[in-house]
């Protein structure tokens, strides 16, 4: 079996909002079976970078390379989903007043002749949830009644509900979660990685990053300032790149 070295490669991605240069130069390689953490201070451009990959925003420039080495263009959420990229946004992922099963499939329900295949949907949602968490989450429950960790599990199971997804993007998946709940989500992330998916995770928690990540990319002021391997770095080194104490010579510091 030939597994590609790199699923996606994003190079020199740029994005401005009006006069705000949110992202000046963002690059990342997404490898199958690896968890790649993106770290950086508030406003460093991490979420913006993730949104470009997810198709939620259209980039101003940059190169996007797909699994077979050919160039791709992601300009809408559909583009990303069709390329096998699933995205989990913190806080804005779920539709209230909708059930667990409905949220797992939100907008992508299995259907025949325009009619939703409810039974198939519920069965597949249950299977997907079991891949993500050992806890029982009733698929008929309204997501409004779930805890933060359970809600995150529902969003995560979107990545495994069909076999076409090879990459999952996570924006601060453990933010606002308690210790127990974070643990469940981190377990799920490891599970996704171990199935061979490429995982990209933004996090402010270095403890969590060092727990699950294999690769670490540091963003600062809209640029990548460091690419590190977890096995060969320390939290202190990562912090020094985040704060700009290290690697400042490589970038033009603007004040």
């Amino acid at each position, binding site marked *: 079996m030939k597994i590609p070295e790199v699923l996606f490669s994003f190079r020199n991605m740029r994005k401005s909002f009006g006069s705000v240069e949110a992202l000046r130069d963002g690059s990342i390689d997404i490898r199958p079976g690896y968890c790649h953490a993106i770290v950086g201070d508030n406003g460093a451009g991490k979420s913006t970078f993730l949104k470009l990959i*997810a198709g939620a925003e259209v980039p101003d420039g940059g190169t996007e390379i797909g699994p077979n080495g050919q160039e791709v263009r992601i300009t809408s959420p559909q583009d990303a989903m069709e390329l096998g990229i699933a995205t989990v*946004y913190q806080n804005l992922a779920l539709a209230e*007043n909708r059930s667990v099963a409905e949220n797992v499939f*939100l907008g992508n329900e299995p259907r025949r002749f325009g009619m939703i295949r409810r039974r198939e949907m*519920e069965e597949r949602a249950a299977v997907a949830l079991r891949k993500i968490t050992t806890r029982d*989450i009733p698929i*008929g429950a309204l997501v409004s*009644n779930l805890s933060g960790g359970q809600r995150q599990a529902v969003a995560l199971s979107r990545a495994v509900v069909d076999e076409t997804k090879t990459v999952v993007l996570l924006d601060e998946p453990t933010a606002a979660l308690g210790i127990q709940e974070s643990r469940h989500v981190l377990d799920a992330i490891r599970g996704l990685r171990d199935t061979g998916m490429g995982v990209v995770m933004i996090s402010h928690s270095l403890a969590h990053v060092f727990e699950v990540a294999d690769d670490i990319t540091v963003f600062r002021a809209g640029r990548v300032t460091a690419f590190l391997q977890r096995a060969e770095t320390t939290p202190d080194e990562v912090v020094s790149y985040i704060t700009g104490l290290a690697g400042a010579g490589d970038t033009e510091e603007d004040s």
Partner: protein
Amino acid sequence: MTALVAPAQLDVTGRRSFVTRMIFGPREAVLIGLIVVLMIIMWFIEPRFLALANLRAILIGSAMEMVLVVGVVFLMVGKMFDLSLDGVINMVGVVAGLLMVGGVPWPIACAAALAAGAGIGLINGICTTTLNMNPLMTTLATWWIARGIAFGLTQGISPYGFPQQFVDIGYSRLAGIPIVYYYALAALVIGALVLAFTKYGYDTFAVGGNRLASRLRGIPTRRVTMTAFLVLALLAGFTGLVYAARLNAATPQAAVNVNLRVIAAAVIGGCALAGGRGTVIGGVLGVLFVSLLLSSTLVLGIDGVWQYTILGGVILVAVGADALAAKVRGQEDLE
């Protein structure tokens, strides 16, 4: 691990959750109960209330409101709102009437008038989605625009005396049953099926539940809302044609406060301004309940001018009961 989900929410297959939220739930059952109770009370007070002729009058009078409420339910489930119904109804009736009286063949007159109505729906849709304007203010404005057009075009002289085929739109019978019943039935069946079983229905619930999440999942959120406004405007336009046909005249005041009655019915039937909630059957039962209630006040000898005070009270009770129930369940609505 502790159970984080209340036992009442345990629904392993999701079947019950689906049926009660999207087709027929406790709310609808309660409404049927209320309708029966209301009829029994009225039967004790005034047996003539249950006379077939009276019930028939109530039903015929509310048939088109049942058609309208189906459109309103879709809109409100998708977290939108439309006050402009009255204006569209009257404007479309007047435009069709004037064209017909002016010698335009009735099908062309109807098509042109409906297109004008659709134009209002289109404005509502564009303003609220592309321009992100507040739906209440937008449709308040288009309500007055359409109203103004209806009054302006008639200049106090309402066109009347339409071709028989046009009058048949509102007055003919099929198998001995008035045609408006078929309109209501068709709207109910098609609306209920589309909302609960199709991609469009699911998208509508999703948009009402979380517009941004829906967009990020690739749901064409603008198109969903636009379609709802357009369909509702067309239903209102069709209602305008039926009203004109039944009166055999087109007045700019054919519909008065129909928008408020229908919105009240939708809310009583389970729709919430916060979106993401409502059923077609609930909305239609809401119309039935409102119509029965208003006509029983008339039978009781309460002057018609008090209708809306009573209706306002009922809406407060319906919304209040929801808020109370949510509080008892321990989950306050965020909106």
